[in-house]
């Protein structure tokens, strides 16, 4: 996936803003030239030396068949925001809203300031910024559109302890980049333009490894130390397309997102030995290999038995339950989650977990059966608690001149 994603990226080069700043006043140009000479004169910075590589100028295209931020190799930082529409926002207003937000995203993701951006200086390092929009049930209802059959809250699961402050919403913004400052600025710009139409319902901030810490495409680790997301289909393959993309109606080229906040009890997890941890998930903690293999992507051997006759990958393990091995049903989703680590309270030393985010063509057919199995039996449930849950329709991408949601709102 890293290779295909690299191909889609470009270097934004000098932005139009930089051009304007340079061109607006000749005096500034002279100062800049002096500055450049000064830098080049420094010892060890000879003119022929390659400049220090920076990745802040890397961009991901905004326009396309699909929205960015799904197949994009996951950036280091994410802010998920769910908005509640004001009562008076109708179909016509939704069109205005999405036109503005799409324009903001189109500019910011390419390293250009948004229109009326009061901090244009913060826009110059997009750092692979993507903005992905999702519509909740009420958004589609207000748009008087045909809601996908799966666009509704998930059924209640026994293990859930959902908090309204982390659940549901009418409009999702998934803002992700390799630079937290970029994410903050883009999120604020979008929210400034949305506030005439909607209020913030919840915000969730997450992180992965920083850009450059590990090779692109490395499966992320969660705060339990586990490799998390090994079974993902690979973007760019027919398999991925089948798992993720909707093919019909205004959603053609879109997908669905499930965003669940899973609290992880790190303090209790500390008390579990390594063998117990590996049994509960069905994979080794060191490499993420299934307990029957040696490498992360080895195919699990669910039939393998110990000398004592027990399954090597236990019946209660997360891997086995998620795969539906013992039910003969193998559901697939594409996970793109982030860790969270908030300030602890009381005598806890952590308030941490996972912003579980996944994409699939049909929530009811793919996600829910898997989640039902995990809710019934998964040893990991002893240390994990779902505290937030939302489902959104992720509309297709848009072409230049269009806007995200135009297949629904035009």
């Amino acid at each position: 996936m890293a290779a295909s994603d690299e191909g889609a990226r470009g270097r934004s080069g000098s932005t139009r803003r930089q051009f304007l700043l340079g061109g607006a006043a000749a005096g500034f140009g002279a100062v800049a030239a002096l500055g450049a000479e000064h830098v080049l004169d420094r010892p060890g910075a000879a003119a022929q030396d390659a400049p220090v590589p920076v990745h802040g100028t890397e961009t991901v295209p905004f326009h396309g068949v699909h929205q960015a931020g799904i197949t994009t190799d996951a950036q280091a930082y994410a802010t998920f925001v769910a908005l509640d529409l004001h009562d008076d926002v109708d179909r016509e207003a939704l069109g205005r809203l999405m036109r503005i937000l799409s324009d903001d995203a189109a500019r910011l993701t390419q390293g250009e300031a948004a229109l009326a951006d009061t901090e244009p200086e913060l826009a110059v390092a997009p750092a692979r910024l993507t903005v992905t929009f999702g519509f909740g049930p009420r958004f589609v209802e207000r748009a008087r559109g045909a809601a996908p059959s799966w666009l509704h809250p998930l059924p209640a699961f026994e293990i859930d302890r959902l908090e309204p402050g982390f659940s549901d919403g009418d409009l999702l913004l998934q803002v992700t980049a390799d630079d937290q400052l970029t994410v903050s600025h883009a999120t604020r710009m979008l929210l400034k333009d949305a506030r005439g139409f909607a209020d913030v319902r919840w915000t969730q901030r997450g992180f992965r490894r920083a850009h450059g810490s590990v090779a692109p495409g490395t499966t992320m680790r969660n705060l339990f130390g586990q490799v998390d997301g090994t079974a993902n289909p690979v973007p760019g393959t027919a398999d991925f397309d089948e798992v993720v993309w909707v093919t019909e109606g205004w959603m053609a080229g879109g997908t669905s997102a499930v965003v669940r906040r899973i609290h992880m009890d790190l303090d209790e997890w500390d008390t579990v030995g390594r063998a117990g941890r590996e049994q509960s998930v069905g994979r080794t903690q060191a490499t993420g290999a299934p307990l029957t293999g040696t490498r992360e992507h080895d195919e699990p051997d669910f039939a393998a038995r110990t000398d004592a006759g027990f399954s090597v990958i236990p019946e209660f393990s997360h891997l086995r339950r998620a795969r539906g091995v013992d039910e003969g049903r193998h559901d697939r989703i594409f996970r793109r989650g982030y860790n969270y680590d908030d300030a602890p309270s009381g005598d806890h030393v952590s308030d941490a977990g996972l912003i579980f985010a996944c994409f699939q063509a049909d929530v009811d057919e793919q996600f829910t059966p898997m989640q039902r199995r995990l809710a019934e039996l998964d040893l990991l449930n002893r240390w994990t608690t779902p505290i937030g849950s939302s489902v959104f329709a992720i509309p297709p991408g848009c072409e230049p001149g269009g806007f995200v949601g135009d297949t629904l709102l035009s």
Partner: protein
Amino acid sequence: MTTRRTTTTLALLLAAGSLGLAGCSTDDAAAEATSTGTPTTAADAVSIQDAWVKAADEGMTAGFGEITNGGEDELTIVAASTGAAAMIELHETAADSSGEMSMTEVEGGFVVPAGDTLILEPGGHHLMLMDLADPIQAGDEVTFTLTFADDSTTELTATVKDFTGAEESYEGDDPDGDHDTEHEDS
């Protein structure tokens, strides 16, 4: 960068393109300019980027953008009009006698030297829309006509955005002397 085209910039490009053609075939100014070897009007030479208007329910508001003179002669914008407001004044921001920044009409219009870009922005030069016909709502588009000193004209389309800045006071038009463009969302 070439792949990014917003609704606004597309509209602007289209407007600029069509008016450019119209300008070539008509103006007297074009004939005058032939002496320099480049038959152009100000409308031919100008291009406008990133135009936007601050949303407002009533009264006054302001329009902004970046006006580039791609021609070889200085151009002057002498007037602007729109169906969205009864009147538009060309304003600049300057310190008044008390040292406070305030906005006043520019005598003689906005001058854009050849090859230069005039940036209309909050706290600087701007189009002052007065006596709005209807509320101007975020996400709407407002079409303006700019008239140049050579009588050529160009149209542009601006996106309306919510904006909490640009609340400086204006002088000269209000008997009370203290109103501003701030709007209250009701």
